[in-house]
C-alpha cells in the first residue's frame, strides 16, 4: 500500500511546527506516524504537507517549579515505560504505555501522539474504494453507516494513555497563538467530528502530572480479546487518594476509555467513593453505579450488553486492585 504524495517538512522545534502548520493550512503534524500514516494509506487523510517532528529529540522528564512532573509529548511510549522517574511518580502511566499496541509501535509512537489520536470506527478505518463508498459524517458526508438513521458520528476515542493521565489529574500545555494550559480531560470534546479541542495550528507541547498526595492506590485495566496488539474493548483507570487513616477515600478519579468519543470521567461513581471506607462491597456498588451512568457505544462489533458487563467487571477489578495497592507516599 502506498501513501499519497505530499511535501515533507521537518520541524526543529514546536514553535517552528506551529509556524509551518499556519503557513500550510493543509498540513498534518506527524510525530510517530503510527496513527496518521495508516489513515493516509486508507486515503482518509491526504494532507499536502507533512510537518514531521521526528528530528526533534524528546526532553527527559523533569519536575517543574510548581512541583509537577513535566513530560515531553515526543517521548516514545517505550521511553515512557522505561523511565524510572515516571515509574516513581506515576506508575499508572508506565503501565498504560506498555499496553499500547506492539513493541514496534511503542518504539515509534509518542505519548503526545497517543493522546491526540483520531477516533475510530469499523466503517471508517478502511479504504473506501469499493466499500462504504459514500462518505459518512466523519468523512465529511451526511450519513452514518453504524447507526443508519443516526444524526451524528459514533466513532470512539480509544487511546490507552488518556484515561490514566486524566485520572492522575494531568494538564497539558498547548502552543499556538501563545501558550495555554488546560486539564487533559478538557482536551477531549466528546464530538466525534472534532474530537480534540485544538485548532489546526496548535501543537501539544507538554504534559504535566501533579505529585501524588499521601496515600494513593491506582490501577489501569485494558480489556482486549487477545492480550496484546489491539485497541481496547474498553479501559478503566482508577486512582484512589486516601485520608491519613489510610482507609477512607478522600478523592477518587475513575476514567473509562474506548466506549465514547472521549474518555469519560464517571463523576457520580467517584462521589460514591469520596469520604467512604473502602471495601469490596463498596467497589461492587460503584461498579454498578458506573454501569448506570455510562451507556457504552457498541463499537467494533462488541454489543452494548457485553460492554456493559465487561465494564462492570473491569471497574470492580480496577477498584479492588487500586485498593490493594494503596501506598504511602
Amino acid at each position, binding site marked *: 500500500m502506498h501513501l499519497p504524495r505530499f511535501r515533507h517538512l521537518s520541524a526543529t522545534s514546536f514553535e517552528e511546527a506551529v509556524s509551518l502548520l499556519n503557513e500550510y493550512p493543509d498540513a498534518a503534524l506527524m510525530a510517530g506516524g503510527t496513527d496518521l500514516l495508516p489513515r493516509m494509506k486508507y486515503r482518509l487523510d491526504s494532507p499536502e504537507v507533512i510537518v514531521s517532528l521526528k528530528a526533534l529529540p524528546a526532553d527527559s522528564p523533569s519536575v517543574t517549579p510548581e512541583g509537577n512532573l513535566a513530560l515531553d509529548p515526543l517521548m516514545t511510549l517505550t521511553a515512557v515505560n522505561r523511565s524510572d522517574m515516571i515509574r516513581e511518580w506515576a506508575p499508572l502511566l508506565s503501565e498504560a504505555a506498555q499496553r499500547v499496541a506492539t513493541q514496534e509501535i511503542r518504539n515509534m509512537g509518542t505519548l503526545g501522539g497517543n493522546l491526540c489520536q483520531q477516533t475510530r470506527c469499523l466503517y471508517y478505518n478502511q479504504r473506501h474504494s469499493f466499500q462504504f463508498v459514500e462518505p459518512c459524517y466523519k468523512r465529511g458526508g451526511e450519513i452514518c453507516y453504524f447507526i443508519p438513521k443516526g444524526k451524528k458520528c459514533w466513532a470512539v476515542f480509544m487511546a490507552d494513555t488518556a484515561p490514566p493521565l486524566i485520572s492522575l489529574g494531568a494538564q497539558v500545555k498547548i502552543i499556538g497563538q501563545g501558550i495555554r494550559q488546560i486539564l487533559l480531560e478538557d482536551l477531549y470534546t466528546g464530538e466525534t467530528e472534532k474530537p480534540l479541542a485544538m485548532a489546526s495550528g496548535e501543537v501539544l507541547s507538554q504534559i504535566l502530572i501533579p505529585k501524588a498526595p499521601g496515600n494513593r492506590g491506582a490501577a489501569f485495566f485494558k480489556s482486549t480479546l487477545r492480550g496484546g496488539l*489491539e485497541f481496547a474493548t474498553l479501559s478503566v483507570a482508577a486512582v484512589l487518594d486516601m485520608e491519613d487513616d489510610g482507609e477512607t477515600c478522600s478523592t477518587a478519579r475513575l476514567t473509562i476509555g474506548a466506549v465514547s468519543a472521549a474518555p469519560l470521567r464517571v463523576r457520580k461513581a467517584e462521589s460514591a467513593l469520596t469520604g467512604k471506607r473502602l471495601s469490596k462491597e463498596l467497589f461492587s456498588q460503584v461498579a454498578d453505579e458506573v454501569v448506570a451512568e455510562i451507556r457504552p457505544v457498541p463499537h467494533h*462489533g462488541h454489543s452494548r450488553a457485553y460492554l456493559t458487563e465487561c465494564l462492570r*467487571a473491569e471497574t470492580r477489578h480496577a477498584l479492588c486492585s487500586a485498593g490493594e495497592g494503596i501506598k504511602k507516599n
Partner: protein
Amino acid sequence: MDKLDYVGKRVLRKDGPDKVTGRAMYTVDMEFRGMLTGGILRSPHPHARILNIDTSRALKLPGVRAVITAQDTLGVKHGFVETPRYPPDQHPLATDKVRFVGEEVVAVAATDPYVVEEAMDLIDVDYEPLPAVFDAEEAMKPEAPEIHPTHPKVEGPFHNIGGKTASGWGDIEAGFANSDYVRQDRFESHLRTHGYLEPQATVASFEPDGKLNIWTSSQGPFIKRAKLARTLGLPFSTVRVQKAYVGGAFGGKIDLFSHEFCAALLSMKTGRPVKIIVSREEIFSAYRHGQPLIVEVKTGAKKDGTLLAQQFKIINNAGAYRGSGVVVIFLAWGFAMLPYRVANFEYEGYSVFTNNPIRTPQRGHGAPQLRFAVESQLDMIAEELGIDPIEIRMKNARRSGEQLPNGDNVHNCGLRDCIQLIDKHTSLREKYGQGRAAGSSDRMRRGIGIGVSSYFGGSLIYPNSSSVVVKMNDDGSVALLTGAMDIGQGAETILSQIVAEELKVPVDEIQVTAADTETTPVDIGSWISGNAYVSGNATRMAAGEVRKKLIDLASEALEANADDLILKDKRIYVAGSPNRGLTYQKLVSASIQERKGDPIIGEGHWRTMRDEPFHPSLASTKGRWSENYAFDAQTAEVEVDTETGEVRLLRAVTAHDCGFPINPLLVEGQIDGQVSMALGHAFLEEIMMEEGRTLNPNWLDYRMPTIHNMAPSEHIDVITEKYEVGQPYRTKEVGEGYVSAILGAIANAIYDAVGVRLFSTPFSAEKILRGLGKIK
C-alpha cells in the same frame, strides 16, 4: 524392519536457511526490467447490472499501458469445480452483472502504483443496483432475488441452490423408532478467513515468442496453468507457472483468481511483465473467506450409547458463485460419517448462492464445523444416558479394517487407541464433571472436553496424480524433480527425506527442483492433504527405480547377489566386505558406458484410488473416495472467567493416528499451528459482514491469535503404519486434520466448566455471559 536413517527423523527443513536469512524469494519479491504495476477496479454493489463501462479517460492518462474488461477476454469461464454437473460459472472479469461487493470489473496496467490509482478514478462504471440477499436461508426462499438459477438437477422450491448432496443408508425412520433417546440440534459456524501472511500476488511475463511465464502465490502450479491456459486460450505448453516461495495459504490460494488472469492478459497486451499485489484490505474483503455452515443434526441412540440413526441437514453460504461450495457439502458428509459407525444414516447438504464474496476451503474444509456439531451433541447424548464421554466414543468408534458404507476401508485405524491414550494422558474421566460439581461460587472454573475427527489423505481431484523424477548426477549426488508446492508445510523436505532413505544419500545432497509446470512433473497440489501419501509414494517409486538400477549395476560389477548389497553414504558394498564396493559416481559412469548412455533416472507416479476412474459423485457421494484415512482425538482443558466470560485454553492434547510421521518436527509444527487456528475459530476470529461488505478487513479487528494466545499443545503419536524401503506405504495426513475435533473438545470443555452449552461459534464472552445469566 530396517533401521531408518532419514524418514521418521527430525530433519531440519531444507528451505530453512533461505527463510531465516531473508533470501527466500516470494512472488511479491520478484522484479523484472520494465515491469508494470496492475490494479483491479471492483464493484461497490453486492448485486447490480453493469450498464456501461467507460475506460476512455483512463486510457489517456500518461503512464497507463492497458485497460481491460470482460470484452477483452475470450469469455471462457472457470470455476473451482469443473464437471458436467457443475460446469464453470465464473468470468475473470464481470460481464453483464456483478454479484458481490469487490467483484472484479476492470483491470489496469501502468508504470507505477500512483498512475494505477489515478487511472482507476478515471474509469466510469454505470450500475443498476438489483435486490440482494446475504443470508443463506433467506436466499433459499422462493421470493429471494435470483443470483443464479437453482441447479437444474435439484428438485424443490428452493432458490439459489448451487448444488446439493444427498446420501444415506439403512432405514432412518426405523433407526429413530428403535432408539431409546433421540435429540435434534442446530449448530452454526461463523465466517472466518485464512489470514496467510503473504498477500495474494502474481507476476506475469508474456514473451514475444508466445511464452507466458507466471509466478503466483498458490497451492500448486498445475491447476493454475490449466485454468489460465483455458481462459486465455493458450496451449498448456506455452504457459509456464514457476515456483516462488509461498507465505502460507490454508486453502485460500487454490483455484484461479481474477488478478492472476488479469496480470497475464495485461502482460500479453502490453508486452511487458506485469505484477499485481493485492492489498491486505482487498484480501480480507473481496477474496475468499471460509465456508460458514449451518448443521442440523438429529441423532438416535440406544441406552448403552450405541448410535443407531443420524440425520443431517447442512446449509452452506457459498457466496456469489459456485466456488468450492459443492465440494464442502460433499466433504461434510464424509466428515460426518467417518469416525463413528451409524447403521442408519441420512444426509442432505445444500450449497446456496448469496451476494457475498465467494467462499472457499479453509483448512479442514467442513470438518471443523461438522465435528463441532457432532461432538457437542454426542456429549449431550452421553450426559442424558448417564455415560461418560470416553465410553460413548469407544462404543461407536471405527475399528481397524472396518468397511465404510461407501465401500472404502479404513485399513489401519488408530482411533480407539487415540481415545484411550488421550484419556489416560489427561485423566479426562476423573476430571470430567468436577468443574460443575465444585459449586458455583468460584470465579474461575475449569473443564475438560474431548472431540474426535477423521480426515482423508489425498483424493481424486484435478490433476489427480503426482509424478516425480529422481536423477543421479554424475558425481553421485541426486536431483529430485517434483511438482509439489511447499506452502510452509515442508513438502520439499519430506520428499527429500524419502529420496535420502531409498538411496542413502544425505538430505543436504539432494537438490530439489520444484513446482515448475515446465520442468517438473505433475503434482496433485497442496490442498488435498496428499503430499505425504501421494507425492511421497511417487517419490519413493522414482527413487526406488534409481535404487534398483544402481543395485543391478553393482550386483553385476561386484558379482554379488542384490540381497547381499548395502547402500550407504553414496556407495554400494557387499555385506560383510565393505572394501568390495563402488561409489555412486562409479556406478553412474558405468551405466553411461555400459547401458547405452543411461545416466540413471527414475520415474514414479501415484494416485489414490488406482482402480477408480473418478472422484465419487459430489451430488450422491456414490463411489470410492479414498484409501487413506487419518483419525484423531483431541482434548481441551479450559478455564472460564465467570465474571468476564473470557475463556483460556489451558491445555490442548492431540492423539493422532497419522500413519507414521515422515518428519516428527514438521508434524509437531502442523499440530501446533492447527490448535492455534482452532483457538482462533473458537474465541477470537470473526469476519463481520453487513450487506456483503466486510467491516473488519484488517488484522486489528480480525483477531488472529498472537503470541499471547499461544496454546500449550501436546501430542500423542499413534503409529499405525510404517515405512519400509522399497515398499509402498500409507502415511495419512497431518496438514488439515487437527483443527476439528478440538473445536468440539473446547465446546464440551466449556460445558464441563460452567454448564453452558454453545451451539454456535465463536464461543464469545458474550455468549458465555448470556449462558450464565449475567446478560439477559
